């Protein structure tokens, strides 16, 4: 590692920080903190994008950094905070697996992700190819978070953090996706959060709670409805 240029070291540091933030999210019970962590994750991503842009001189990366700043650091956390305030959900219920158990599964996930990314990083020719493993790990950890959480709100945060992981993966494997794709994904994410926000209100109106295991009873009621 010694002798590597400073920007590369900083990039690797950002990668490690992203992994750390994923674990912090996995262990966090308060939804407000979860959203704050998401904003921090967006900021680290922004920093990584800027560093990579400065290092490779690819101008479209500056554009995607601006996109990250506008969308992931400012707009989405703000939207989510507003949703939390209006819905009055501040805590997630106890996750399906307790925190220590989730953490251990998380470590195994990271090992798996690193193994998975090994062949990919050998194919990549970018300077940041080592970070691909971390990107895959962030994606899988967000996935794990979506699986273990009950409240719809935390699942959305997991979804957004998964997108962050994918973005970082694309960045470290090929120095970013084409601009069109990036804009498309950004728009998708924005729309998804807006639509899910409307869904939250609907879910709460139906079940008086954002706990998603209530949704499982929908099936039976639909069956009754069909018969009558």
């Amino acid at each position: 590692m010694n002798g590597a240029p400073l920007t590369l070291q900083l990039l690797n540091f950002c990668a490690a920080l992203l992994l750390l933030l994923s674990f912090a999210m996995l262990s966090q019970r308060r939804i407000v903190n979860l959203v704050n962590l998401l904003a921090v994750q967006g900021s680290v991503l922004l920093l990584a994008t800027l560093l990579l842009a400065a290092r490779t001189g690819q101008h479209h990366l500056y554009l995607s950094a601006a996109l990250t700043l506008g969308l992931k650091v400012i707009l989405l956390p703000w939207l989510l905070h507003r949703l939390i305030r209006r819905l009055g959900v501040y805590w997630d219920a106890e996750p399906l697996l307790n925190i220590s158990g989730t953490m251990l599964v998380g470590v195994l996930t990271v090992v798996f992700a690193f193994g998975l990314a090994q062949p990919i990083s050998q194919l990549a020719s970018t300077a940041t190819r080592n970070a691909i493993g971390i990107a895959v790990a962030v994606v899988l950890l967000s996935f794990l978070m979506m699986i273990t959480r009950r409240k719809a709100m935390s699942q959305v945060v997991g979804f957004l953090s998964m997108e962050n992981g994918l973005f970082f993966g694309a960045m470290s494997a090929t120095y970013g996706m084409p601009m069109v794709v990036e804009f498309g994904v950004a728009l998708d994410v924005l729309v998804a959060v807006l639509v899910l926000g409307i869904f939250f209100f609907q879910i709460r109106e139906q079940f008086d709670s954002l706990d998603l295991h209530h949704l499982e009873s929908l099936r039976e009621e639909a069956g009754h409805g069909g018969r009558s």
Partner: protein
Amino acid sequence: MRPIEVVTQLLELAAALAAAPLFLGWINQCRAWLQNRSAPSIWLPYRGIAKLFHKDAVIAVRASALFRLAPYIVFGAMVLAAGIIPSMGTRLPFTRIADAIALVGLLATARVFMSLAAMDVGTAFGTLGARREMMVGFLAEPALLMIIFVASLISATTALPAITEHLATQTLGLYPSLAFTAVAFTMVLLAENARIPIDNPATHLELTMIHEALLLEYSARHLALMEWAAALKLFNYACIGFALFIPWGVSTGQEAPLALLASIPVLAAKLIVAGGALALIETVSAKLRVFRAPEFLATAFLFAVLGLLVHLLLGA
């Protein structure tokens, strides 16, 4: 064995013995400031120890020799540990006998004897404290070992002075793995030294205390030694942290006595900053329930493992 090495060794031991209560006093003072209380004197731990040495010891009727011997064993282990940790110089004659893993073992020995002595008298609180102490210890030790392994992987040796020397003399670089392990180490330090998220050093509420419960039956010189040993333990942990994560300023190699002299103010500065940081952490965090302690230490272990994985992946 060169004379300068012997001087370094003796100086380190003397500094540890003298500065450990001072470090504790400094932390207490910082905590008082942060909590808007009027601060106790920084010399208070010395006065407490001196006062206890002048008192007559009271020992429980059923106490065995183990109870009487334990303070000396614990204190001895801590002094020996202080001799192994390179806080000022890395060329120490003592360190040839023990590497970092042996150091962890030494700290564990002290813990075992402390717990045995607490159980020896047979009071309920002593037993309770001993059990909790062992629980914390058995969770904290793997994390501490893992932390040391990360540093060992980077410098390819388990000898603490060699690790420090390697980390201090190489070109400056960012080590994400070391950053992870530094967080883990801070958590282990807090847990092992009965600091706030796990145990409150200022408490005398029997149901929540761990460290104080172990010392409940001790008085006079035994208690003084135990408290001095606790201060030394905190000092040792701080010095392990410095050796692994901020090794700069330690005199390495075969330099003149000048480097050794220069390392004294550096160590003092590190201790002052670390004490302030520790007080800050303790002030902003609340004490966890005992049943949350495994979660806290599992997180520390996780951070250490993450550090290891990141080191293997990124090579940094």
